[in-house]
């Protein structure tokens, strides 16, 4: 038995959805029902409705699993599953089948309500959603307040990056009302983007975030703000690559840059956490590889590398 629920749909859409579900019957391998009162296996979210998004964001991460973005146009919203308005039976069936299948693959023994165990700091921060979270290790700490979009820390620059690189069990983590906030006078709150970027870059340990589709195609909707940290060549290359017109998968990114998957995943996670990543389902028609831009010649690559190396060594 599987349950489908929805947030923010118009009365008409909700009625259509309910009657479609009733008609699914034998076309699905599991029996699906529309229910609002039990934990849902799939959730249809009207992303054209800002109130609905706000409500959705308040829900715990577990309740947001398998959310389907339902919208008029291609939403600038990082969800891998999408349905275009109006509802059509065939498309609905396709998404729900996909969810059934994904859940089968996930058929690890589930303890309690937590579907998968969180193993990295990046996942941990991503799941935290909107609340306050404090990470501490000895006398070093970071407090991230997602609702106010800011953070503060005892560390800065390289030492902040070092703190965020630790394996997850090393942190003492407190969330919500349990967080003892540092006294207002002693701390400097900064834009959370800087710390979220670092969490992705340092706290991913080669593991893609649970919320990101491994087979998705990625594209940046803007470049990260680097602030005082000079971005590495790796980061600049990946930013450039994901600025192309057509979105790219992880394998394409590896091929184009020769970078290890570890770095690519750190980048994708960082971009996802800071909200600058657009993800398209990898199933949609892939762009023709023939349309790819011509290779940059070796001679030119050499020249560009020399300019880069010159910039890395400022002369006074």
């Amino acid at each position, binding site marked *: 038995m599987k349950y489908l629920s929805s947030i923010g749909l118009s009365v008409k859409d909700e009625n259509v959805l309910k009657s479609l579900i009733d008609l699914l019957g034998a076309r699905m391998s599991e029996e699906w029902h529309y229910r609002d009162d039990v934990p849902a296996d799939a959730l249809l979210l009207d992303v054209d409705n800002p109130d609905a998004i706000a409500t959705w964001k308040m829900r715990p991460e577990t309740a947001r699993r398998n959310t389907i973005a339902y919208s008029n146009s291609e939403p600038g919203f990082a969800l891998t599953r999408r349905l275009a308005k109006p509802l059509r039976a065939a498309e609905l069936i396709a998404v729900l089948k996909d969810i059934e299948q994904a859940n089968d693959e996930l058929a690890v023994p589930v303890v309690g309500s937590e579907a998968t165990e969180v193993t990295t700091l990046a996942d941990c921060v991503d799941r935290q959603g909107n609340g306050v979270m404090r990470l501490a290790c000895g006398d070093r700490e970071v407090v991230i307040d997602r609702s106010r979009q800011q953070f503060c820390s005892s560390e800065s620059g390289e030492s902040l990056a070092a703190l965020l690189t630790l394996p997850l069990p090393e942190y003492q983590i407190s969330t919500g009302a349990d967080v003892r906030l540092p006294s207002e006078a002693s701390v400097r709150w900064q834009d959370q983007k800087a710390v979220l970027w670092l969490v992705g870059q340092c706290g991913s340990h080669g593991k893609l975030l649970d919320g990101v589709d491994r087979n998705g195609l990625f594209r*940046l*909707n*803007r*470049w990260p*703000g*680097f602030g005082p940290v*000079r*971005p590495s*060549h790796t980061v*600049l*290359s*990946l*930013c*450039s*690559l994901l*600025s*192309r*017109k057509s979105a790219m998968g992880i394998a394409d990114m590896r091929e*184009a*840059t020769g970078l290890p998957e570890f770095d690519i995943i750190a980048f994708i996670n960082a971009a996802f956490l800071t909200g600058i990543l657009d993800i398209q389902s990898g199933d949609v028609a892939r762009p023709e590889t023939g349309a790819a831009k011509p290779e*940059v010649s070796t001679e*030119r*690559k050499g*020249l*560009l590398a*020399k*300019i*880069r*190396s*010159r*910039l890395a060594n*400022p*002369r006074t």
Partner: protein
Amino acid sequence: MSEIKIIITGTPGAGKTTAIAAISETPPVRTDTATTDELSEVKEQTTVAMDFGELTLEDDQKVFLYGTPGQRRFEFMWKILVQGGLGLIILVDCTREDPLADMKMYLENFSDFIAETGAVIGLVKRDMTDTPPLDEFYQALNQQGLMFPVFEVDVREQGDVALMIDALVSLLEYS
């Protein structure tokens, strides 16, 4: 070995001359003359032909940095200066009346060159104003089907100028 050049353009007073002075190894060649019109309220000198600076690479190859005059009546110099260029940096002065329109104007004027190469947008004087928000610049680019990096920079800082060139170089290689 062919000449390698990077061009810096943007609104009058945005800091093209300042940027080249910040990063050039040699004292920059300037063609600044006294301002005689309303710009003189903002600054005393303006570029009428070009700024010129250089960087030396490890094998003694040179990268030339050219700054264009900012004022529109020197448009003819823009065309001359971009010939054979590697890429373009556009500086947008956010204290001016309509910085988004300024950016669009330069994107349009250099559109052929940009299409063949690439561009980086530097927003300057952000210490004096934080509008328009960064997102609006990305939206404006997006509307023209473009995706270029937009950075908030202080062109008096060598590191910030280096970042723009660095991003431009990555863009040329990977995007």
